[in-house]
């Protein structure tokens, strides 16, 4: 929508690498402290939407023992988990044959969510599905939670339980700009730039296709949190063109800069394009073995395995029963 220049996306959700590190570190640190204090980190989203951390371990002996056993995830391990679920997210969207736009929106929601929270606090599987659900709602491709849950044989209630916390964590900034449309815009511009004939139009189509799959790769990195969609699109086209050699990219950029009063120089732009490229190159999917190991740690951080399971079941059974506002408000939560 609207104008990227005045958007919340540009104003609030594009960071420097340092800011990003700081955010990941802060979320990780907080979860670590919770783990030390409570012995587990997973927040419960109750039927009334309120959040709570696990009860602190009071019996000192038991607690101390447990704390010694449970290790928190490192920042890098959290990253692996996010990478895994972002791939899962793409997979689910592909299986549902959702348009690209929805996938991209859901991915950006997921990334933004985990700028505020650690994977130790909110289960990424649930958040991933909730992000897809929210993206469908926003992009007017409404899919009921039930349908979505069925499609992947999950209880849809957890999607609904997490919906509000997702919106809140996104600070209700729900309009996001994916680079796909920007790719389209540049291709249109390039058609004019090279006064393309039929042959060239065909080649530009090929260029666009490859650029789109380049964008797919970028969407799995931190790049969407670091660069505006226009630059991501240009980086994708740059790579795609290096392969197909359709246009003289340098002179295209030159013409672009001469047409507009840019706040940047060409060399600054190239710096960005290179940075984006190196993010894509450095991207790696963790091995199954690594994931298995991290997952085990993560589960013990969540406190899954011990008595918490029964507590969870208890909560679940409460889902259907609507309490009066009075009751629910006086219901205690943990501090």
């Amino acid at each position, binding site marked *: *929508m609207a104008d*990227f220049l005045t958007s919340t996306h540009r104003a609030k959700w594009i960071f420097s690498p340092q800011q990003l590190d700081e955010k990941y570190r802060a979320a990780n640190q907080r979860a670590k402290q919770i783990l030390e204090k409570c012995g587990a980190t997973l927040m419960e989203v109750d039927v009334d939407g309120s959040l709570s951390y696990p009860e602190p371990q009071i019996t000192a002996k038991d607690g101390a023992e447990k704390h010694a056993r449970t290790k928190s995830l490192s920042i890098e391990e959290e990253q692996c988990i996010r990478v895994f679920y972002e791939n899962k997210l793409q997979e689910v969207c592909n299986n549902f044959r959702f348009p690209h736009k929805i996938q991209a929106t859901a991915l950006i929601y997921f990334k933004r969510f985990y700028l505020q929270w650690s994977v130790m606090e909110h289960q990424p599987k649930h958040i991933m599905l909730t992000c897809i659900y929210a993206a469908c709602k926003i992009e007017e491709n409404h899919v009921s939670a039930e349908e979505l849950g069925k499609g992947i044989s999950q209880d849809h209630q957890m999607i609904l339980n997490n919906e509000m916390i997702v919106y*809140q964590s996104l600070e*209700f900034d*729900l309009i996001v700009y994916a680079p796909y449309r920007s790719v389209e*815009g*540049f291709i249109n511009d390039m058609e004019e730039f090279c006064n393309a004939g039929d042959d060239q139009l065909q080649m530009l189509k090929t260029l666009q296709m490859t650029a789109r799959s380049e964008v797919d790769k970028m969407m799995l990195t931190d790049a969407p949190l670091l660069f505006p969609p*226009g630059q991501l699109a*240009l980086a994708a086209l740059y790579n795609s063109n290096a392969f197909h050699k359709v246009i003289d990219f340098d002179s295209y950029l030159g013409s672009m800069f001469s047409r507009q009063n840019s706040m940047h120089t060409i060399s600054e732009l190239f710096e960005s394009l290179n940075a984006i490229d190196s993010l894509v190159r450095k991207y790696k999917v963790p091995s199954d073995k690594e994931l298995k190991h991290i997952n085990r740690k993560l589960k013990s951080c969540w406190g899954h395995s011990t008595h918490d399971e029964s507590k969870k079941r208890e909560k679940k059974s409460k889902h259907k029963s609507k309490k009066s506002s009075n009751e629910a408000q006086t219901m205690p*939560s943990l501090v």
Partner: protein
Amino acid sequence: MGDGGGSNRNKPEWLQQYDLIGKIGEGTYGLVFLARIKSSSNRGKSIAIKKFKQSKDGDGVSPTAIREIMLLREITHENVVKLVNVHINHVDMSLYLAFDYAEHDLYEIIRHHRDKVNQSINQYTVKSLLWQLLNGLNYLHSNWIIHRDLKPSNILVMGEGEEHGVVKIADFGLARIYQAPLKPLSENGVVVTIWYRAPELLLGAKHYTSAVDMWAVGCIFAELLTLKPLFQGAEVKATPNPFQLDQLDKIFKVLGHPTLEKWPSLANLPHWQQDTQHIQAHKYDNTSLYSVVHLSPKSPAYDLLSKMLEYDPRKRITAAQALEHEYFKIEPQPGRNAFVPCQPGETFVNYPTRPVDTTTDFEGTTSMQSSQPVSSGAAVSGSMPGSHVSNRSVPRPMNVSGMQRIPHQAMQAYNLTSQAGMGGGMNPGGIPMQRGVPQQQLRRKDQMGMPGYPPPQKSRRI
């Protein structure tokens, strides 16, 4: 419920920053309340709080509410209503949107002139209201937003104060961004007043363009002039999306029958094509719009109006073009305060304040102890302290004896404008959290000045 239910006793924290005055509106989406800010910095400032009904079971958070919030988060304009805050009631997952309060709206203003003072709205006011409405609409359209539900009750006007007489376009629950294909309203299961609906929609056009808003503006313009709805068709109530024959007939009667010469794409519109109701049969020839609105056919006002009520949406005047129309260049020129002309000597009307139903609380339940007449609007304005409402809103201490844990706030404020960020809303457990938002605000990585985000359609109407 007893003495008004738990809502008063266990008043959520966010609600405690307001004095609830009463209910001022009701729609399919939910209820609207008037409240005043208690905090010293903005004490007494009036706020309209729109409470969205919980959406259907299993549907999660109301899509209408979410859509309205997401659009309003991205736009700022003097002639568009300002979203001040979003509050969440976690108990039933309902959302409360807090807006700057506007005392008047075009529906009430028109009604006041028609039923109370029995005199038309003065030309300066009509022109200023129309200009500001177009100004806001031009902003929305240039941001690729179609409102889709413009009607007099959605066009607000600020009451006394710094922004006295300033128009605010409100109610974005149906607004859409129009890069994506827009589904017909009926598919969203929404009922919209048909009087302001553009002929292409009545004839079954599948896609909206910004021209539908301009049609509505034309209808509103005429209504400001004559004090009655221009095309007051009887609505066919059926689902889904019934053919509104009477509404079209009302339009044809005033504007004459549309023809394929004047409106070539008419041939592609489903209801015209099918012609099941014989709408193609030519009935009305004499166009009499100018006599209906009592304007000289040569006047600039008439010229502008007829361009807004152009059948072919592609030929219909745009908001940007309308703002440049001669009508706005001749005397009296439009002003920022639509109520008070710059030139002295003009008489102007004092509009009544909005009626407030002081018997309804935030839960939408009517309290038993008060039975004030609903329509006593004047009694409410400016005389709130001491009324039973503020008495009721004094938070009573909650009985927490025997409980070790601190009760959580079921509702959390989510301050959008102050960028207080994650502070209040996100942290019910009181765990120290990083407050990243202010820094985020400072860092603005500039988008390269490049066609990075192209306009959605290459062929935009000029």
